[in-house]
């Protein structure tokens, strides 16, 4: 199961849990599983989050990116640039 790290303002959906083990073969599947377990969290992660896996920042919207059983996933606020 992938290891998901949530930033503080997402933890209100998980009862304060910051690190979670989540089933899912892709980022999208992980988000769907998080929404199933914590209703309301999914849209927060798809609408406005950037995603990093194993410390590498992914392009925005990378819902089909594959994740493995030991993948570290960080959902963070959106990053753009100037």
């Amino acid at each position, binding site marked *: 199961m992938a290891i998901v*790290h949530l*930033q*503080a*303002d997402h933890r209100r959906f998980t009862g304060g849990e910051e690190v979670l083990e989540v089933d899912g073969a892709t980022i999208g599947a992980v988000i769907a599983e998080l929404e199933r377990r914590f209703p*309301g969290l999914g*849209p*927060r992660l798809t*609408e*406005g*989050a950037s995603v*990093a896996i194993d*410390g*590498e*920042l*992914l*392009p*925005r919207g*990378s819902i089909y990116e594959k994740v493995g059983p030991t993948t*570290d996933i*960080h959902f*963070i*606020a*959106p*990053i*753009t*640039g*100037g």
Partner: protein
Amino acid sequence: MTDTEARPTYKYVGTRPIRHDGLDKVTGKARFAADLNMTGQLRAAITRSPHAHARIVSIDTSAAEAMPGVKAVVTGADFPEIDIADAIHDEAVNNIARDEVLYNGHAVAAVAATTLAQARAAAAAVKVEYEELPAILSIDEAIADGAPLANPTTRTLFTGDTEPSNFASIGQFERGDVEAGFAAADVIVEREFTTVPVHQGYIEPHACVADCGQDGKASIWASSQGHFAVRSKTAAILGWSTDRIKVTPAEIGGGFGGKTTIYLEPIAVRLSQKAGRPVKLAMTREEVLRATGPAPASKISLKIGATNDGELTTLAGTMYYSNGSTKGFSALTGAMSVASYKFPNLELHAIGTVDNTPKSAAYRAPSAPQAAFAVETLVDEIAQQLGMDPIELRLRNAVVEGDPTAMGMPHPKIGFIETLEAIKSSDHYNSPVPEGAGRGFATGFWFNIGEQSSATVNLNEDGTATVITGSPDIGGSRASMALMAAEELGLDVHRITPIVADTESVGFTDITEGSRATFATGMAVVNACRELIEKMKERAAVIRGVDVDQVAWIGGAAVIEGPASEGNEPLTIADITAQAKMTGGPLTATASLNAAGAGPSFAAHLADVKVDEETGQVTILRYTTAQDAGTAIHPAYVEGQMQGGSAQGIGWALNEEYIFDASGEMENASFLDYRMPVASDLPMIETIIVEVPNPSHPYGVRGVGETGIVPPIPTLANAIAAATGVRMTDLPMSPPNVLKKINEK
């Protein structure tokens, strides 16, 4: 000077050829959007709101339409209504107001006429009846209990809230135990910092030419950081499909983030459609300052704790950022940019606000300079209180690969320590501080991004090449693309022509932002070249009558290896392209990608300043910047980015500010009154390129365009503190503001 980690030796990468677009730029031949003229072209002008916040009761365009030369008039009613949940809503409303004007300068109507003078006269004759509404002009006003709404369509981002609010976004970042961290700290410093809006100050005002044909399609020539985004946004605002719009990128006279958004193109297209003629629409400098996005104002309360031996243990605070008239996530980005030190205990609240000033826009490392002002000032103060060298304190606490950023994500391979070491060993740092001067030091961080890019490489009949990308060149990226292609192909860089093609001539490419062009588009160029090399090996095998696995690509030529090599001279690119027709036709390759793994960049700045204690005038005597570029593809342009970012940061620090009157009208909307630094204000900015290659890029590139603007504000604040003993916490650090602080000492 370059401080380089061991890496392969390159023939072209790392050299400094004259940029391919240089001659056109210096001879005035380069064509910017406002230089374009078409047969039958009309000129357009915009009617703008004189109020910071008002309801539009009615618009009467009849007098304007009757004026000489007028061919078309448009208002918000000429554009489709867009749902407030739609991603394009805010930008559409910012292009032209619908029910309310949201800031002084907001576009209300536009006129196309035979001459510019006629268009301006008619724009002034558009009669708008307003009902004035309370205007919110600051962060404090926006967050006050019972504050009226600045924009009734704004919802707080990413919360699911459906009620209108003056809060654009609310976020929180935590790790460790802040309370325990401060309890265990030996030294605690705490201050509040404020910054005001500043403009990107690009020399070229926004401009475009639009030509709408009778087939319902439009061609646009525009100055932007991303012409594919101009296409998609214009289409969305007009309610069109993207295939109805072709955008050709003009040369761009600076963007710095401010041209990642659009202001004019949908209006110009609609005017052209109504008039049946091409329409040129160009802003004046006053319009640029009144109606395009500045960097946000901020108000940051921050507290940092440390132990006596110099461990930074705890950081806590609240960061307010104004987004201007619409929602945005500038505060979240500001908090996330707190990424340079380990801080085992951290708690940051990030709150974005909405008010009735122009909608803010990206500006080089958006939101990071404001946050760095607070963090780096307090870190400097801790070093001062502990009697530690400011660089040693930072070395003691600097993040390395695997350490977390404020949002928890671990850093990938980074070169912060190397950057600090580079400036520590610089001539500047090891020279005495001039008598009567103060020395300041600070650092900066920026994420950088990847995203989507496309490139096509065509080999011409004579063995020259054309590299075609979709990334507008805002900082010398064409030269970088040519250098990477030269390195891959083994072809002289001046036999390569890099161009930026229109939206119908190259694959989709995201905006040039986030310092992504040389990183992501560069990778697309590299991939296309590698595909071309495989094709050339196949052609060489045909020409020599050998299997392709006997052909190697060495030094820009196909070399036959093994037993068949005897008597078979290497085939150059020109040898192969000369026979392209006989071996399968033209040689071309295209690559597209969605790049991950952008390498973050760190910078460290050092400044010596003198402060005139009678006038408050700050004079910079010496300024040095070190920055990790990963690999500098074209070192001269990397240095240019470092110097440009420094110069803009210096202006932000010392002089620049939007000055609004009580009604929300900008009082200094010209370069005469909006004081940007000029060459005579600055010393030569010395540069040290640090090269810690990014493992996610074939040549190790990290973006370099943004980080350089992050450290100057705290660098100069710390230098002023060293020179005067006064801690500056409010921008700008202009003579009257510095003098006031000195007098309060």
